[in-house]
C-alpha cells in the first residue's frame, strides 16, 4: 500500500477523532450545570424521603388515645416554617419581602406557642391518671 494513502487516511481519522472529542466536550459542558443543579436537589429529595419513612414509623407507634395531642404537636412543629420567615424578615433587601417575612413570623408564632401549649394542657390531663 502507498504510504501516502495511509498517511492521508490516518490524518482523516485523527481529524474525526478530534471532532468527536470536541463534540463530546461540548455536550459535557451543556450537561454539567444541569447535573450540578440536580445534585443538591437530589440530596434534599433523599433527606425528604428518608424523613417520610421516619415519620411513618414513628407515627404508627403513637397510641390512638393520643392522636389529638399528636395533631397538636405536629401542628406546632410544622410552624418551623418560621425559620424561612425569619430569614426573610432579617436578611431581605426588599421592604416588601421583609414585610411578608414579618407576617410569616407572626402567624407561625401563634402556632408555635398555641400548638405546644395546648398540647401541654391536653397531656397534663392524661398524666398520672392511672387506675386506683
Amino acid at each position, binding site marked *: 500500500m502507498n504510504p501516502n494513502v495511509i498517511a492521508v487516511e490516518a490524518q482523516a481519522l485523527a481529524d474525526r477523532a478530534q471532532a468527536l472529542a470536541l463534540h463530546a466536550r461540548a455536550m459535557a459542558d451543556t450537561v454539567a450545570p444541569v447535573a450540578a*443543579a440536580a445534585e443538591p436537589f437530589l440530596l*434534599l429529595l433523599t*433527606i*425528604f424521603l428518608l*424523613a*417520610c419513612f*421516619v*415519620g411513618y414509623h*414513628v*407515627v404508627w407507634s403513637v*397510641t*390512638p388515645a*393520643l*392522636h*389529638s*395531642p*399528636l*395533631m*397538636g*404537636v405536629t*401542628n406546632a*412543629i*410544622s410552624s*418551623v*416554617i418560621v*425559620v*424561612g*420567615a425569619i430569614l*426573610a*424578615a*432579617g*436578611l*431581605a*433587601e*426588599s421592604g*416588601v*419581602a*421583609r414585610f411578608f417575612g414579618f*407576617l*410569616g*413570623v*407572626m*402567624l407561625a*408564632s*401563634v*402556632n*408555635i*406557642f*398555641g*400548638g405546644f*401549649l*395546648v398540647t401541654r*394542657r*391536653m*397531656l397534663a*390531663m*392524661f*398524666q398520672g*391518671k*392511672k387506675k386506683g
Partner: protein
Amino acid sequence: MTTLTTLAYLVASVLFILALRGLSHPETSRRGNLYGMIGMAIAIVATLLRPGMDLGGIALIIAGLVIGGGIGAYVAGRIQMTALPQLVAAFHSLVGMAAVFVAAAAFYSPESFGIGVRGDIKGASLVEMSLGLAIGAITFSGSVIAFLKLDGRMSGAPILFKGQHMLNAGLGVLLLVLVIAFVATGSDFLFWMIALLSFALGFLLITPIGGADMPVVVSMLNSYSGWAAAGIGFTIGNLLLIVTGALVGASGAILSYIMCKGMNRSIINVLLGGFGADAGGAAAAGGAAADRAPVKAGSPEDAAYIMKNAQKIIVVPGYGMAVAQAQQVVREMADLLKKEGADVSYAIHPVAGRMPGHMNVLLAEANVPYDEVHELEEINPEFADADVAYVIGANDVTNPAAKTDKSSAIYGMPILDVERAKTVFFVKRGMASGYAGVENELFFRPNTMMLFGDAKKVTQEIVQALQR
C-alpha cells in the same frame, strides 16, 4: 449556611422526631412535648444568629414572635377542650398562610435565600416555590372552611352544587397550567394568580364535606400543612423545614388513613363529599315503617335501677356527648357505679368526635383514668359479657347494619358491638338518623332501651337516682 447553623437544625430535627416518639405512651408524652419546644427554640435562635441579620430585622422578628406568641399562648390557655377541633383547624390555616408569606418573601427577595436574583430565579426553585405556595394556600382556605364548619359558624351539612367536581377538576388543570407558565416566565402576576386560584380551590374542596367527615378533613389539612412546609423547605434549601414537613405530612396522612378505615371509606369518597346528604330524606321517610317492633323508651330511674345491679358496664361516648358537655357527669355516674361494685370502662370508636382522639381528651379532661378507655379492637370482645352498654351521643358507629346490610351506606364500617350487651341504653334526643342518614336497627331490638332527652340532663338524672 454555616456549619453551626446546620448542626443546630440537625439537633432540632432529632428533637422533633423524639417529640413524636414520646407520644407512644401517656407517661412519656409530656417529655416529648418538651423536646419539641426545645427543638423549636434551638431552630429559632440558630436562625437569628445567622450572619447578615441586621438589628432592624431582629427587632422586626422579635416583634412578630411576641405578638404571635402572645395571641397563641392566650388562645391555648383559654380554649375549651370541646372546641379543640376548630382550634386545630384554625392553627392549620395559619401554617398555610405563613407558607404563602414565606413563598412571597422568597419570590421578592431570592437573594436572601441564594436562589437567584429578583426577576431571574432558578427554574427549579420556581417549581418548588409554586408547590409550596399552592399547597400553603389550599391549606389556608381549606382550614378556614373546616374551622367555620366545626365552630358552627357555617352549616356542617355538605354543600353541593351541580358540576362541582368538574369545576374543581377544571381549576386543578388551570392551576397546573399557571404553574408551568409561572416557571417559564417568573412573572409577578402569575405568582399571585397561583395563590388566588389555590385559595379558591381549597375553599371549593372542603365545602362539600359534611360535619362528621371532619376527622378526615382535619387530618388531611394537618398533612397538607406539613407538605407546605416541606415545599418551602425545598424552595429555600432548608433541611430542617424539609425534615419537619415530611414528619408532619406523614403523620397527617396516617391519621387520615386511620380515620378513613374507621369509616370503611376511601379518601376519594370522603373528598368528593356529600356523604349522607341524599340518604337522609329516604331514611327519614322510611323511619316510620309499620313492621318494626315498637321502640322501648325508659326513664332515667329505670336505667339507674338496671345499672345498679350490673356487674360490667361499658360506656360508648360519641360526638353528642361533647356537644352536650356531658363528659363530667358521665364520669360522676361511673364513679357511683364503681362504688356499687361494677366494672366500668369506655369504648371509643376511631371516628368518634370531630378529630382523631378527641373523645380520649374529653374523657381525660373529666378525670377518667386513661387505662379505662379502650379502642375498638380491644373492647369489642368484651361487649358479650357486659351487662350494660351506655351509648351516649353515638349512633352510626353502633349500627349492626354495617355488618349485615349490604345496601346500607355504612356497610363494612367497623362498629362497636354494643348489641351483644345484655341491655343497651341509648341516650338520644329523638329518633333521628345519624350522620350517615341510616336508621339504626338497634333502636328496635328488645334489649335496647331508649333514654330520650339531652345527654347531660339524662345522665344527671341517672346520677340523682343512683344517689338515692
